[in-house]
């Protein structure tokens, strides 16, 4: 029973949504109600996840686990944001200014750090995986697109060269299209597995 009830709920809700979408007119009100419920449930799930995060770090502080200073920092910044936000409101310009003052430099610096990490990772890929069709085409493509990104070749304005550049610029779309279709098929399979109860919360 523990497994069957979630399976029935999951399958029925999925079938209801599919029926409401593929039979327009009759199911739109049902779909609206169901989507509202799901939005509320997704929000509550997020809040439960945040509460779980806070409780875990609180436990780290109480037990004095190694790195509890970081947990203290996290909880302090979380509490200050929450209290400040409740007092002034989420759309208050002063509140948003201070949130931006903290978040923007960290995100920008982290993205800057990504540039350095990516550079070392790109070099590491040849050391780790050796010379293969994938690594060679990756390296050549990176160099070619780095040169094309400079815009120097485009400025020469040679009709033949422009044709070649247009052809080369279209090449990544072929691989991207294949990857997109592959991901879509995988996602479709996963969705059917969830609906038929082969994956999901009822399946331990």
């Amino acid at each position, binding site marked *: 029973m523990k497994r069957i009830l979630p399976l029935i709920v999951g399958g029925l809700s999925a079938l209801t949504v599919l029926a409401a979408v593929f039979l327009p007119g009759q199911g739109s009100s049902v779909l609206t109600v169901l989507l509202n419920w799901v939005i509320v449930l997704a929000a509550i799930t997020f809040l439960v996840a945040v509460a779980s995060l806070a409780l875990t770090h609180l436990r780290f502080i109480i037990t004095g686990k190694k790195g509890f200073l970081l947990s203290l920092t996290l*909880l302090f910044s979380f509490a200050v944001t*929450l209290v400040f936000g409740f007092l002034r409101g989420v759309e208050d310009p002063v509140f948003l200014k201070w949130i931006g003052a903290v978040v923007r430099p960290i995100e920008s*610096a982290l993205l*800057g750090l990504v540039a350095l990490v990516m550079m070392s990772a790109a070099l590491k890929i040849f050391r780790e995986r050796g010379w293969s069709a994938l690594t060679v*085409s*990756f390296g050549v493509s990176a160099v070619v697109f780095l040169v094309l990104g400079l815009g120097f070749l485009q400025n020469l304005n040679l009709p033949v060269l422009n044709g070649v550049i247009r052809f080369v610029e279209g090449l990544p779309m072929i691989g991207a299209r*294949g990857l997109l279709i592959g991901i879509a098929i995988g996602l479709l399979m996963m969705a059917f597995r969830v609906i038929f109860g082969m994956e999901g919360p009822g399946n331990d």
Partner: protein
Amino acid sequence: MSLSDLIVMILGVALTIMVFSYILGDRLFFGIATHILIGVSAGFLTLVTIQKVILPLLVAPLSSPAAPGFLLALVPMTLSILLILMLFRRGVQAGAIPLALLSGVLAALAIIGVTRGTLAPQLLSIFSRFDPAQLIQEAEPQWSSLFEAMMILLGVISVLFVFHHQGKTKTGGVVRPVFLEGIGSIGQIFIGITFGALFVGLFSTALIALINSLSDIITFLKLWF
């Protein structure tokens, strides 16, 4: 420059240096900066979730019992309580039903989104390349268009074969037929080209962010020296 602007600037530079301390092998200051980011982001998202979703969609209908949405709001409230029970060790199983509803609806939405938004447009875009109106113009075959269409078809099929891992097992290992290996290698070239182009795009963006962060530090230093 006002006092608050100055404080914002000092805070920004301090946090930037804390993140960049990772390059020197420091973990403490980098950890503090990332944990501040996690704490502030979690706090802000919690506030937005409460004010924009929970209050209007759950609390408002429940606060007026005479309203038509009251009975409908009882369902998400009950399911929400079951979800909250998951925070306690004994109530973990209670969350199975709301999570099943959530995953069922999301799976159905994924099927609709993937078929209508990705699979159909991508497949139609490939097949439209073989439209006779495009391939033959003024009774003359357009060889470049045909070459392009064939290349796209070959590229997409070969990329899909890269992830085909079924094969005969021989002494424990998976051996794929030779033609699959060949098509897979062509697919790897196309994936490499795509990843190379993506890498350059991401790398350029990250480099701009790095320059921006460094220029902020230089601007700050110029204020004092």
